[in-house]
């Protein structure tokens, strides 16, 4: 299984520090082609340009929340198959179930470790390849 580390990843979080942390962790895993957005409203038009292969998003953000961004992505014909990893502080069972039903590919709760991020990414790519 060869993961394409050149894939373009969009990181969406309203806190710039969290975006930086995720960006650095991804770079450490070999993914250097990343871009950032601070909420769903700014992320969606970026995604619609078709330049991105993977989405990492927070849930709780001003403007458009992560769950709505996920729903928009799944509803958009061109973006529907894009893998989406949610990285969030929301730990309610019903929310995790809601995200799963909306078609999320992975769900990480904050605070998280570099190891967790790697595991979830591996798992997502494993499923896509399989």
């Amino acid at each position, binding site marked *: 299984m060869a993961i394409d580390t050149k894939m373009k990843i969009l990181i969406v979080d309203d806190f710039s520090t969290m975006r*930086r942390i995720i960006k*650095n962790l991804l770079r450490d895993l070999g993914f250097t082609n990343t871009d950032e957005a601070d909420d769903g409203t700014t992320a969606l038009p970026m995604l619609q340009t078709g330049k991105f292969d993977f989405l990492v998003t927070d849930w709780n953000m001003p403007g458009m929340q992560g769950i709505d961004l996920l729903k928009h992505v799944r509803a958009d014909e061109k973006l529907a198959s894009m893998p989406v990893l949610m990285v969030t502080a929301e730990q*309610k*069972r019903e929310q995790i*179930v809601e995200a*799963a039903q909306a078609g999320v590919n992975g*769900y990480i*709760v904050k605070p998280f470790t570099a190891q967790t991020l790697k595991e979830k990414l591996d798992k997502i790519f494993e499923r896509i390849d399989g």
Partner: protein
Amino acid sequence: MEQQENLLSSENVTKVKNLLALMESGELEKAQDCLDQLSEVRENEMYQEIGKLTRELHDSINTFGLDDRLSDIAEDEIPDARQRLAHVITMTDEAANNTLSAVENSMPLCDKLISETRSIEDGWKRFSNREITLSEFKTLSNELKSYFEANTACASIINENLNNVLMAQGFQDLTSQIIKRVISLVEEVETSMVNIIQLSGNTSKVKSKDDEKDSSGLDGPVVPGLETKGTVSGQDEVDDLLSSLGF
């Protein structure tokens, strides 16, 4: 009740009898005087009642805790606390960004050290095995010289970055102090609120915590020691939940 008994005192009964007698005998002026006296009794009672009510109101206000302290809290200390908390956000933000910058600046330096070490490693091995020519040795020697210089420079920058990380942790002390002050303010407000609720006698229906919670919004991070109903305790439980859903 007391006032009503006063009204029926024998003195007043006599006055009324007098009034009746005076009116029947047609002595208008004296009847008028008598009537005035009677209404004066009535007015005095009203003033006494008002006085009593005023005193009770005054006492209630005092015991109500609606003193200077509460208005101080509302006017000054709550806005002050808000500013302090905003400052906490600023400080934690700065600390996180300074730390991230230091780490981001150090990582390429570490990568550089690793790759430079690798590049001279081979030459050094051959030198150790005495497989090297004199001209190669000269090149290696120059490479080593520049490696040592670069190494020292890199390490001192990394050292400086680590120092920045160290210094950035100062936020913990400062933010804790601010947050502690805000906590004690919240405690004070809580006590005052409880007093007001008790004094106003409205103790009958205190809603349970569950009823009060707004279930529509997002809860954010779970705080240890607070209500954690319906939440997972960490990544393992998230994974379990998702795998039970077929993930």
